[in-house]
C-alpha cells in the first residue's frame, strides 16, 4: 500500500480527508481490467486468466494504461471466468487463458473482442455492456454490486466507494440507542435464515446483565447450495466488518469474532487482510476514529460441522468444545459465549447495517415488502441456465427470479420444483411460483426462505431422492446429543433408502409422518426440528412419486438406480460406440460397424454414463 497514512485516523474528518485524497489520486477514465477471482471462477480456470493478464501487461509495459483489479464474485457464475473492462463496463464471459493476449491488444486500441461477448438467448443478439445483460439488469445489487469495484485485499477501494462513512456518522453523530432505533425503523431482519428482527436482538443484548458483551459474525454458511456469505466475505469483507463495528458500538461490545467455515479458505484469508488493514487505519482496535470506543475482531475457523451454524453450537466451538447446541430457554443475547451476553448475526445482516446508517431507515424501508425490508442475495443453482448469485428486493415473485433472471431451465426440460431454505426448508412446486419471496410468504407454503439457497429441479429430479439426500445430509451432520434427532434421522434415512431401492412397503409414508411430528416437537435444536421439512413438503406436493416407488417399484424421474433400467433403442443406435467407451463396467459391447450395441443387464451398474454420453437418445432410461 503505497500512499498510506502512517497514523491511525483520529476522527471522521480525517477519514473523509483520506477518502478524498484516494479518490483524487485515481483517474476515473483510466481503463481497468476487472477479473473475478472468487472461488467459483477460480474453479473454472480464472487463475490462468489472471496470471496471463499480469504477464501481458508487464510484457507490454502497459501498467500506466491498463489497471488490473482482481475482485470477488459479481454473481454471473455460469458464465465465468468473467472479465469486465471499466469504465465502459464491457463484459467478457467464459474467458480462457489463451484469450488474454487478444483482449489486451484490443482494449489498448479501444476496441472490443466481439466473440467473448454475452449472447442474449432470447434475442440472439450480442450484449456489450454488463449493465444491459438481463441477468444483471433485473437485480437490485445494493450489496453485491460493489464487488466488481473492490479488490478485497486493498481497503482503499472500499474507502473510495464511501466505505466506513457510516461508521464515522454513527460514532460522531449518533448514540448507541439512536443506532438501534434506526435499525429498528428500517425493519432489518436476520439474513441467516431465522429472520429475527435484528434491532430487537441488539437491544436485548445491550440491556442484558453482564459486563462483557461479545459480537459474532456467523459466516459458517452450512446450507449446501448457498454461497452468498462466501462471496460477501471474499469479495467485500469490509462491508460486514463495518457493520460489526457499528453494531458493537450500539450494543456495547468490545470483542468480536468472525466465524468462517473451514471450507472457505479464501474468505478466511481476505477477512484477515481486511482486519489488519482496518486496524492500521484506526477503523478497528483501540480508540476507533478517535471516539474512544475500542473493538477488536478475531477470526475463528469452523471444523467442518453444519451444526455449528446454530448459534449455541457455534459458541460452544468458540469455547474449544464440541459443537453441541443447548436449549435456548435463556437466549444467547443474555447468556451466550462464556455465559456472557452475545449478539450473533449473519454476514449479510451485518453488511446491511452500513447501508441503513449511511442512507437512513426511510430509504431502506422503501425497498422490499411489507414484512421484509431491503434486498436479499440468493444463490441460484441446480437445473437453471443462469446459475450464480443474484440480489433482488424482498417480495419479488419466484417466477421472476427463476425465469426472468435465472433464464429458465436448460435443455428444454420442464421445471419441477425449487428447494429453498436448505435442509431446513422445503420444495415449492410449479403452481406456487407466483409466491413472493420473503420471510413470511414462503413459511406459509411449508418452506422457508432460509439463508437464500435456491435449488432448481427439473423433470429428471426424483423428489424422493431429494428427500433422502437431505435426510442423509442431516444424519451426517447431527451432533448426536438428543435422541429424536440422532435416532430419528437414522430411521428416516433407512426408510427413505428402502423406498428408493425398491424395498418400500405399505405404511412407510405414515411412519415417516409420525416420525416427522416427533422430530419437530421434541428435537433439542433447529437442525432436528426442521429436518422433516424436505420430507414433509415433498410428500405434500409429490406424494404420487413416493407411491410409485412403493407400490409400483418405479422411479418416475428415472433417478433411483435400483428402480431404473437402461436399455438400447435398436432403432436409434447407429453403433458409434461412444457408450461402449463410457461404460465403466464393460456392460456394453460393440457389435460391429453400423450395428446397434448390446447392453448386458447383468453387468450394468446403472451409473448412467451411457445415457449422458449418447447424443442421439438411443439409450432408454425407464
Amino acid at each position: 500500500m503505497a500512499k498510506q497514512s502512517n497514523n491511525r485516523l483520529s476522527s471522521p474528518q480525517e477519514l473523509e480527508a483520506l477518502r478524498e485524497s484516494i479518490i483524487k489520486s485515481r483517474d476515473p477514465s483510466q481503463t481497468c481490467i476487472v477479473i473475478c477471482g472468487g472461488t467459483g471462477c477460480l474453479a473454472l480456470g480464472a487463475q490462468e486468466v489472471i496470471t496471463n493478464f499480469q504477464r501481458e501487461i508487464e510484457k507490454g509495459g502497459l501498467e500506466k494504461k491498463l489497471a488490473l483489479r482482481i475482485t470477488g464474485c459479481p454473481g454471473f457464475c455460469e458464465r465465468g471466468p468473467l472479465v469486465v473492462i471499466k469504465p465502459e463496463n464491457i463484459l467478457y464471459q467464459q474467458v480462457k487463458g489463451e484469450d488474454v493476449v487478444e483482449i489486451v491488444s484490443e482494449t489498448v486500441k479501444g476496441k472490443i473482442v466481439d466473440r467473448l461477448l454475452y449472447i442474449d438467448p432470447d434475442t440472439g443478439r450480442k450484449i456489450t455492456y454488463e449493465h444491459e445483460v438481463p441477468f444483471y439488469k433485473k437485480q437490485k445489487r445494493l450489496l453485491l454490486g460493489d464487488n466488481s469495484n473492490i479488490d478485497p485485499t486493498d481497503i482503499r477501494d472500499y474507502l473510495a466507494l464511501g466505505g466506513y462513512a457510516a461508521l464515522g456518522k454513527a460514532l460522531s453523530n449518533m448514540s448507541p440507542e439512536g443506532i438501534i432505533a434506526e435499525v429498528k425503523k428500517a425493519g432489518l431482519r436476520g439474513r441467516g435464515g431465522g429472520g429475527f428482527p435484528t434491532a430487537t436482538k441488539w437491544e436485548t443484548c445491550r440491556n442484558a446483565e453482564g459486563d462483557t458483551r461479545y459480537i459474532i459474525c456467523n459466516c459458517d454458511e452450512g446450507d449446501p447450495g448457498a454461497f452468498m456469505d462466501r462471496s460477501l466475505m471474499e469479495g467485500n469483507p469490509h462491508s460486514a466488518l463495518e457493520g460489526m463495528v457499528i453494531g458493537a458500538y450500539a450494543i456495547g461490545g468490545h470483542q468480536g469474532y468472525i466465524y468462517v467455515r473451514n471450507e472457505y479458505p479464501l474468505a478466511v484469508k481476505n477477512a484477515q487482510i481486511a482486519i489488519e488493514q482496518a486496524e492500521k487505519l484506526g477503523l478497528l482496535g483501540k480508540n476507533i476514529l478517535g471516539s474512544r470506543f475500542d473493538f477488536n475482531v478475531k477470526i475463528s475457523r469452523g471444523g467442518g460441522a453444519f451444526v455449528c451454524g446454530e448459534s449455541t453450537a457455534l459458541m460452544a466451538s468458540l469455547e474449544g468444545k464440541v459443537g453441541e447446541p443447548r436449549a435456548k430457554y435463556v437466549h444467547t443475547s443474555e447468556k451466550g459465549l462464556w455465559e456472557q451476553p452475545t449478539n450473533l448475526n449473519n454476514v449479510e445482516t451485518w453488511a446491511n447495517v452500513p447501508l441503513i446508517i449511511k442512507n437512513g431507515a426511510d430509504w431502506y424501508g422503501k425497498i422490499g415488502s411489507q414484512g421484509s425490508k431491503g434486498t436479499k442475495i440468493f444463490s441460484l443453482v441446480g437445473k437453471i441456465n443462469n446459475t450464480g448469485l443474484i440480489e433482488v428486493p424482498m417480495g419479488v415473485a419466484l417466477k421472476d427470479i427463476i425465469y426472468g433472471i435465472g433464464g429458465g431451465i436448460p435443455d428444454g426440460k420442464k421445471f419441477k420444483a425449487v428447494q429453498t431454505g436448505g435442509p431446513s426448508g422445503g420444495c415449492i412446486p410449479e403452481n406456487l411460483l407466483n409466491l413472493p419471496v420473503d420471510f413470511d410468504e414462503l413459511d406459509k407454503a411449508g418452506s422457508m426462505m432460509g439463508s437464500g439457497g435456491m435449488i432448481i429441479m427439473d423433470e429428471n429430479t426424483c423428489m424422493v431422492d431429494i428427500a433422502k439426500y437431505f435426510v442423509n445430509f442431516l444424519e451426517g451432520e447431527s451432533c448426536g446429543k438428543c435422541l429424536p434427532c440422532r435416532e430419528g434421522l437414522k430411521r428416516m434415512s433407512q426408510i427413505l433408502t428402502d423406498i428408493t431401492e425398491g424395498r418400500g412397503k405399505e405404511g412407510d409414508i405414515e411412519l415417516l409422518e409420525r416420525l416427522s411430528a416427533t422430530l419437530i416437537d421434541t428435537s433439542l435444536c433447529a437442525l432436528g426440528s426442521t429436518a422433516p421439512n424436505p420430507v414433509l413438503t415433498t410428500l405434500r406436493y409429490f406424494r404420487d412419486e413416493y407411491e410409485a416407488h412403493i407400490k409400483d417399484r418405479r422411479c418416475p424421474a428415472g433417478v433411483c438406480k435400483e428402480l431404473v433400467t437402461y436399455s438400447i433403442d435398436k432403432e436409434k443406435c447407429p453403433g458409434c460406440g461412444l457408450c461402449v467407451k463410457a461404460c465403466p463396467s464393460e456392460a456394453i459391447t460393440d457389435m460391429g460397424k453400423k450395428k446397434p450395441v448390446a447392453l448386458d443387464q447383468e453387468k450394468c451398474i446403472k451409473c448412467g454414463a451411457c445415457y449422458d454420453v449418447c447424443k442421439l437418445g438411443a439409450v432408454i432410461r425407464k
Partner: protein
Amino acid sequence: MTTKNKPTKQKVTSILDSYEGDPGMLVAILQDIQAEYNYLPKESLTHISEGLDIPMTQVYSVATFFKAFSLKPRGRHIINVCLGTACHVRGAGRVLEEIGRQLDIKPGETTGDFRFTMETVNCVGACALGPIVVIDGKYSGQMKTDKVKTLLESYD
C-alpha cells in the same frame, strides 16, 4: 505435505503459544497441527492436553467431532468431492463413485501407496459450477466421470 515429520513438543508448543494458550482456540490449534503433519498425530493431542491444561478426553472429543480432522495419516494429495445439494443434483455422486473406482478406495480412505486420500465435503460454496472436486486446494468445476482420469493423472 507428507508425514515424514514426527510431531515435536516444540512445534506443538509454538502453535499453542501463537494462540496465547487460549483453550477456546482448540479447533484452530488442531487445524494448524493438521496443516503441519497432514493429520493429527496422537502425541500432538497429548501435548495439547498438557499445554492447554485441559483433559485429554476434551481434545479427543473435539478432534473426533469435526469432520475436518483426521486421526489417521493421510495421502500426499487430499481429494475433496463436494456433495452439496447443487452438486448432487448435477451428478456429484457419480463423480465420487468414479474416483473411488479408479483409486479403489471408499470415502475417508487413503490409497495403499499414500498417494491420495478421498474425502467428501458438504459444500465448498462454488455451487454454480458443480460438480466440484478440490485437490490440494485447487478447484475443478463442472466435473464429469470422463474427466476424472486426466485429473488424477496430473498428481504424482
